[in-house]
């Protein structure tokens, strides 16, 4: 009983602002805003319509609203979220439903490719100094790679041929998807809609 745990039980509705420095478990309903310095758990059955600012969030229930976490947001397979998520770690497991944006902060997308490029460029200069004069007009020096030279007698030919070959084989550009795949991608009708209920109402 001493460790601080806050629970909003299944039959309780809280509307307004909720803030604190301890773990919070929601099994019922909360509307408004939640601001915590610890972990928020929305259990299956819990419904939250609020903007949330927490350290960690584990969502097994329903959340409508934006969530900002200092550490992580975890959507379990029962979790349903409509809103934007902003957190350095976002975990969506198979079965979780989500609609909105995810912002994991500044991600250096080019980081990995750049390191390899700089490495190959650094290796190049050894050769570049060998045969610059003859090749200069034919091809930009930059394009040369440290390829083993089999015919050192004709150094000028190699660099000229190489860029041409490169241009002939362009990177596989983004080709439009075949129609079959596009058709396949159309999702089935959302399971959330209570079609049955609506029908039942009309009958009565």
């Amino acid at each position, binding site marked *: 009983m001493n460790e601080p745990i806050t629970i909003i*039980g*299944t039959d*309780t*509705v809280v509307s307004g*602002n909720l803030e604190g420095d301890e773990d919070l478990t929601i099994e019922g309903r909360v509307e*408004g805003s939640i601001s915590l310095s610890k972990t928020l758990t929305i259990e299956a059955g819990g419904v939250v319509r609020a903007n949330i600012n927490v350290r960690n969030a584990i969502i097994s229930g329903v959340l409508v609203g934006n969530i900002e976490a200092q550490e992580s947001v975890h959507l379990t397979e029962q979790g349903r979220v409509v809103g934007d998520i902003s957190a350095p770690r976002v975990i969506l497991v198979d079965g979780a439903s989500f609609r909105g944006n995810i912002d994991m902060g500044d991600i250096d997308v080019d980081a990995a490719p750049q390191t390899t490029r700089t490495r190959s460029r650094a290796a190049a200069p050894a050769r570049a100094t060998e045969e610059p004069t003859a090749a200069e007009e034919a091809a930009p020096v930059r394009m040369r790679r440290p390829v083993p030279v089999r015919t050192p007698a004709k150094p000028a030919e190699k660099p000229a041929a190489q860029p041409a070959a490169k241009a002939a084989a362009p990177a596989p550009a983004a080709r439009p998807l075949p129609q079959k795949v596009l058709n396949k991608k159309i999702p089935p009708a959302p399971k959330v809609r209570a079609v049955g209920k609506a029908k039942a109402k009309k009958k009565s």
Partner: protein
Amino acid sequence: MANTVIGSSIVIDGEISGEEDLIIQGTVKGRIVLKENVYIEESGIVEADIETSNIEVSGQVTGNIVATDKVEITAGGRAVGDIKAPRILIADGAIFKGNVDMDV
């Protein structure tokens, strides 16, 4: 485990309503509407009008209390506001200021 617990470091500004027991160790401002029992523990601070069936105050309450069954202010409890309930218990040591209406 069907209870609702508002922990000691939690502050709620708004309305709490429901049909199960509510234990308040933290701070609640606004309004509480319940059909079950409300327990305001020693560390609990409530600045709200409360409608419930049973309420036990061991912490601090500022606001009007309407209970359909019973209001109890324990020895450590402190309440400021009007109380309306058929049964009202104020223990020795409890602090209370306000009107009491037992519907006599």
